[in-house]
C-alpha cells in the first residue's frame, strides 16, 4: 500500500542549535493508524508538526501523498490535514456548531450546508446536535470538548489526521469511550492517522504500527501486534519503564 505520509531524513534544529529531530525516516500507509511513542521532550510533537508545516524541518523532507509538503499551498495543505490536540483549542467565543464547521465556513461553504454538516459531524462523534450545537465550549465537559475538537478536525473531510495526545487529559473511563469512538471513526472513514500518545495501551489499541522516538531519533518502527514481544532493547526498555510507571501509579492510588 502506498505511503500517505513519508518522513525522509527529517532533521530539526532549533535556532539555539539544539537538535530536536535527527534524520527520522518512516512511512505511514494510507488508511492506517501509526502511534508515536516516546518520553516527554523526545521530539514527538515536533515531528508531528512537520506534516502540516507548523514546523519546517532544517533538512530532509515530508511527503504527503507522494508530494513534498513544501510544494503544497500552505493553507490548502493545512485544510487537508485534520489536527487535534490535548488542549482542544476550541474557539471560546463561538458555538459548538460554528467551531465544528469553521473550516467549511472559511472555505466558502453555504451557511445552511455548514449547519447540516455540523449536525452530521456532531452525531458522528456521539454528541446530540439538538442539545450541543448551540452550546459554547465552556459549557462542555473535557470529554465533550475533545469530541468537538475531533469533529472539527474531520469537518473538511481530510484524508489525514494528526493527533497530539488527544485524550491525555481525560479520566480513564472517558478515555476508553473516546478510544472506541475514534477507532470506529478511523475505520469507517478510512483515515490515515498519526497519533502521539504517552499511553502504551492506547497505542496498542488504536494503531497498527508503533514508532518509538527517543532523543529526537527513531529507535523502533514495528507492528503494534509485535511491540510487546519485540526483542529490540529500546522497545523492551520502554515497555518495562511504562509498566513500572503504571504499577507505581496504582500503588499511589491504593495508598491515597
Amino acid at each position, binding site marked *: 500500500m502506498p505511503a500517505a505520509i513519508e518522513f525522509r531524513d527529517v532533521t530539526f534544529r532549533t535556532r539555539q542549535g539544539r537538535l530536536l529531530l535527527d534524520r527520522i525516516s518512516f512511512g505511514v500507509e494510507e488508511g492506517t493508524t501509526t502511534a508515536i511513542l516516546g518520553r516527554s521532550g523526545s521530539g514527538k510533537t515536533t515531528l508531528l508538526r512537520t506534516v502540516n508545516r507548523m514546523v519546517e524541518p532544517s533538512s530532509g523532507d515530508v511527503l504527503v501523498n507522494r508530494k513534498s509538503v513544501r510544494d503544497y499551498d500552505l493553507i490548502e495543505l493545512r485544510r487537508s490535514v485534520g*489536527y487535534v490536540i490535548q488542549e482542544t483549542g476550541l474557539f471560546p467565543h463561538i458555538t459548538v456548531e460554528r467551531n465544528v464547521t469553521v473550516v467549511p465556513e472559511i472555505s466558502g461553504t453555504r451557511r445552511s450546508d455548514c449547519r447540516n454538516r455540523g449536525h452530521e459531524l456532531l452525531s458522528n462523534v456521539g454528541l446530540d446536535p439538538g442539545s450541543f450545537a448551540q452550546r459554547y465550549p465552556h459549557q462542555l465537559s473535557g470529554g465533550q470538548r475533545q469530541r468537538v475538537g475531533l469533529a472539527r478536525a474531520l469537518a473538511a473531510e481530510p484524508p489525514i489526521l494528526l493527533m497530539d495526545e488527544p485524550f491525555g487529559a481525560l479520566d480513564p473511563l472517558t478515555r476508553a469511550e473516546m478510544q472506541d469512538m475514534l477507532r470506529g471513526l478511523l475505520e469507517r472513514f478510512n483515515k490515515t492517522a498519526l497519533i502521539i500518545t504517552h499511553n502504551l495501551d492506547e497505542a496498542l489499541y488504536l494503531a497498527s504500527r508503533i514508532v518509538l522516538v527517543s532523543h529526537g531519533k527513531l529507535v523502533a518502527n514495528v507492528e503494534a501486534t509485535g511491540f510487546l514481544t519485540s526483542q529490540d532493547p529500546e522497545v523492551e526498555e520502554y515497555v518495562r519503564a511504562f509498566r513500572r510507571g503504571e504499577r507505581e501509579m496504582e500503588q499511589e492510588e491504593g495508598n491515597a
Partner: protein
Amino acid sequence: MSQFFSQYGGQIFELTLEHLWLTGMAMLFAAGISVPVGIWLTRSERWAPPVMAVANILQTIPSLALFGLLLPLPWLGERAARIAIVALTAYALLPILRNTYAGIRGIDPAVLEVAHALGLTGRQRLFRVELPLAASLIFAGLRTATVTCVGVATIAAAVGAGGLGELIFRGVASVDNRLVLAGAIPAALLALIADGLLGLLERRFRVPAK
C-alpha cells in the same frame, strides 16, 4: 434656577455637543491608531517596549502644558479645536494600545495554534479569532481612554477649543459656582454615560473562562 437655564440652556447644549465632538473625534483617531499599532506590536514584539514607552510619556505630560506646546505649531495652532483633538488623541493612545496588545497576547496559545493548523489565513485569524477574543479588553481600553478624555477635554477651553470647560473657566473667573456646575455636571454625566455604554460592550464581548 429657571432663569439661569433660560439664559444658559442653549449654551450648555451647544457646548455639550462641542465637548462630544472633541472627545469623539479624539477617540476615533486614537482607536484608529492604537488598534492597528497594537496588532502590529503583537507581530513585532521587539518594538513593543519602545512604542509603549512613547505612549506612556505622552500620557505623563500635563494636559495644560501639552495644549500650550501645541499652540505655536503651524496648521495645528490655527484652530484651537485641532490642538484639543491632537492632545486628547495623544492621551487616549496608551490605554487602547496597551489593551489591544495585551488582549491579543493573552489569547490561549492552543487556540492560536489550532487556528494556524486549520488553515485560517492571517486575515481570518485576525478577524475571526484574535480581534473577537481581544474585543472585551480593547473596549475596556476605550472606556478608560474615553472617561479620561471627557475630563481632560474640559481643560481644552484654556486654549479656546470650546467644550464644557468654557463654562467652568468662566465660572471660576467670575466666581459663579452655577456656571462651574453648569460645565462640570454635564461633563461628569457624559463621562458616566460613556463609561456605562462602553462597559456594556466590554461585557457583551467578554469570553467566558473554561
